[in-house]
């Protein structure tokens, strides 16, 4: 009889402690507040794993996740025939790079990943991305590899399967992604990307992780 009561009490106390723990955790998170506001983007407290992937860079060389290791990367998925969203995002990246203070600038690189390999040859990609900044990287890949990578980082794109002509458009997410030095997804910045907001956000995120 006594032992049953003891057990019940222990369980109840345990549950109370657990609840209190949760409450503390939630409260703490609330007190520190988000690193960036909801309109600016989302930070993952636990970086989302990206895993292995295969791409082809703008020199036609195969690259994988190792190419992105040990640096923070701002990554944008798009296509070069896009006359509006993509050049605007790359122009924003150019501004972001300039706005970073030196210490942050040394830790962050920039990449454009084309989801339109049929039209975006390595040559075209190189000309394209270097128009914005000679330090930017561009890559593309096999359609299946691109689909897989995009899915893992929460990017959606739709390339028409049998386009009527070469002037087709590609639907795509307008996120600017932040990959951490372990090549995992740490944050996403939503369009329109205000360079000042992204700069502040990246700085806070790098300091926090």
């Amino acid at each position, binding site marked *: 009889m006594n032992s049953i009561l003891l057990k019940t009490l222990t369980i109840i106390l345990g549950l109370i402690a657990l609840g209190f723990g949760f409450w503390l955790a939630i409260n703490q998170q609330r007190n520190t507040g988000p690193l960036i506001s909801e309109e600016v983007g989302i930070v993952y407290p636990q970086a989302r794993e990206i895993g292995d992937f295969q791409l082809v860079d703008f020199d036609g060389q195969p690259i994988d996740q190792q190419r992105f290791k040990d640096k923070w990367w701002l990554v944008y998925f798009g296509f070069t025939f*896009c006359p*509006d969203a993509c050049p605007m995002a790359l122009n924003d990246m150019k501004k972001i790079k300039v706005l970073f203070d030196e210490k942050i600038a040394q830790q962050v690189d920039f990449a454009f990943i084309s989801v339109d390999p049929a039209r975006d040859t390595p040559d075209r990609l190189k000309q*394209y991305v270097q128009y914005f900044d000679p330090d930017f990287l561009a890559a593309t890949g096999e359609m299946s590899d691109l689909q897989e990578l995009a899915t893992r980082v929460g990017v959606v794109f739709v390339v028409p399967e049998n386009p009527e002509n070469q002037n087709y458009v590609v639907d795509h*997410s307008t996120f600017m992604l932040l990959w951490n030095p372990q090549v995992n997804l740490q944050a996403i910045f939503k*369009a329109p990307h205000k360079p000042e907001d992204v700069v502040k956000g990246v700085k806070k995120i790098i300091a926090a992780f």
Partner: protein
Amino acid sequence: MKQIVFQHHPGNVSSIVRGILNRLVIISFLFGSLASISFAQAENEVLSIKSPWIREAPPGIPTLAAYMEITNITESPISIIGVSSSIAKMTELHEVKLENEVMKMRKMADITLNSGQTLELKAGGSHVMLMGVQESFKQGAEIEIIFELKDLPAVKVMVPVKKDS
């Protein structure tokens, strides 16, 4: 026969009337052409085009987006039934939809602007999309875009190429 007779007799009343009529024809011709000139100007003023620009594209990119504010400054509705440019294989009015953060460009259905109504084409949104552009246009260049209107003459706009700020 009769006409020849009249011409050979300048003093004839009929011939005087005829002379006046001839002059009237000439005058009305002049009037007509004057009227048609001013009409042409008026036609160009059916739409007011504000802040037109085209984003300079990176080298080798055959797609351009043009932006501007188009306002119907007449008393009656105007339908834009087509858009074209001689420098592009294909020109379309595009609207941009952001659905779940996914950007979708679609051809706009024919557009009717009511009196005073403005169609806003601006960066990050709707635009005139020029596709299959073979030449490279740098900042400072100008590109002609033609809007075809229902029951009205087409409106031509010279649009300057500019770099993104």
